[in-house]
């Protein structure tokens, strides 16, 4: 356990020393300014528009920054042969992987905290709290999926591309299911049935990120503790899937 925590600690230190904090603060400041502009040009519901804009763009920026940070940090460590050095010591691969996961999850929590704090001025506090906790779960999943992808691909471009595709698909899979289930389409054709099965099968393997971090919780006050419980459960289960898959890959890797 101490080995896991030691790896997590230096992963967190690395995040603090690579100006991630300033990147997050800078992005949020720019988006906050953008939200002021949106509020200025809106004819009505200015506060709602401002909160909605900042929440949606802040969420995307947080996902992007966490994904890029995890990918670049891991690839740098591969290139510097840091991973090989660490694994040549008395350190099980599982401890290394879990340490990295805990460290990046802590980074994700920090980014979620900063993003939530930026929203605290623009929306009711209860909604902001729910939104922030959900964002934290979402960012932890993004960090976990990025870590898994970097371990698998060992390069930034394929790893980040895969993560962004995964993220977009996980956020839109419910909508895609709705579209393929349309009764306007001929449900008896083979191609339609095949595509429906494919989409339904894919949906089983993806977390339904469309239920996470909804702007409606901020602007319509529709969030609930039950929804958050469901999100936490999904994060735990999918986090375990990604950890299992990442460990499986790491153990099989010839370093």
């Amino acid at each position, binding site marked *: 356990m101490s080995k896991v925590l030691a790896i997590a600690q230096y992963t967190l230190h690395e995040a603090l020393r690579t100006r991630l904090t300033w990147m997050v603060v800078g992005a949020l400041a720019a988006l906050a300014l953008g939200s002021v502009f949106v509020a200025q040009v809106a004819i009505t519901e200015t506060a709602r528009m401002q909160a909605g804009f900042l929440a949606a763009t802040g969420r995307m920026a947080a996902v992007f920054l966490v994904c890029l940070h995890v990918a670049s940090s891991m690839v740098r460590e591969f290139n510097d042969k840091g991973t090989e050095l660490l694994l040549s010591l008395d350190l099980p691969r599982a401890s290394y992987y879990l340490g990295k996961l805990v460290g990046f999850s802590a980074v994700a929590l920090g980014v979620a905290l900063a993003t939530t704090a930026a929203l605290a001025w623009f929306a009711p506090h209860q909604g902001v709290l729910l939104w922030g906790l959900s964002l934290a779960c979402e960012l932890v999943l993004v960090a976990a999926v990025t870590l898994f992808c970097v371990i698998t691909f060992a390069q930034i471009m394929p790893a980040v591309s895969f993560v962004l595709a995964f993220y977009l698909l996980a956020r839109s899979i419910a909508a895609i299911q*709705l*579209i393929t289930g349309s009764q*306007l389409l001929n449900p008896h054709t083979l191609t339609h049935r095949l595509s429906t099965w494919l989409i339904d099968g894919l949906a089983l393997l993806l977390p339904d990120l469309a239920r996470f971090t909804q702007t409606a919780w901020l602007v319509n006050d529709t969030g609930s503790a039950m929804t958050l419980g469901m999100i936490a459960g999904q994060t735990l289960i*999918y986090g375990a899937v990604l950890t299992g898959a990442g460990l499986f890959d790491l153990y099989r890797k*010839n370093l």
Partner: protein
Amino acid sequence: MAERRLSIVPTAVVALLVLALAAQLSLRLLQPRPSASARALPTPPSPAALRVTSLGDPIALAQVLTLYLQAFDNQPGISIPFKDLDYGQVERWLTRILDLDPIGQYPLMLASQVYGQVPDPAKQRQMLAFVSRQFPLDPKRRWPWMGHAAIMARHRLHDTGLALQYARTLREYATDPSIPSWVRQLELPIYEDLGELRAAKIFLGGLLDSGAITDPHELRFLIDRLKQLEDAEKSSAASRTRPTGSAAGKQ
């Protein structure tokens, strides 16, 4: 570089992966299938916001929005499609989509063949009015929907005046040489009162002959519509003959 053999992976890791995957599948299977809510159709974003969102590619955005709109209220589990939709919102969505992609015919097809089919005369009228307002903006491409609107006005709304007005508009605007000449003579079958099935058959036959419809999905969709009309006519003919038969039996 070859990977290490599978047996090198600790059993605990394999067990974690299998159990977590099983939990994920169970969780997703337990969650209800996503369903569309008729009341959830929001106001579409403003044209300016859509232009910005399209990132310079309005056609792609129009196509995404069309599928998004189409996904509302035609899902399994909702017994009366479109009935509960706010047609003001539907019309706004269709207008925005046409603004983004004026060449695309999908919104007008949805208006005349999908949203215009609800058993609510007011909503039918609203969709037909939408088609008739959009038609003069691009008669060369939009004439098939105006023709459908004229036939629907006559046979669904039983409003001969409106049907003739639409047929007249069609004659006035559909002057491009690429449009078949029979389109400009649609007032005739409306005057003659041929019945919906025959009028629709003539119109669809003309459409197919003119080569205006090439998309196999659209062809199948329109042919299915025709079959539905035939089935409806058969069942109404059967119900018309039944009382006579029973009356004869009583005598």
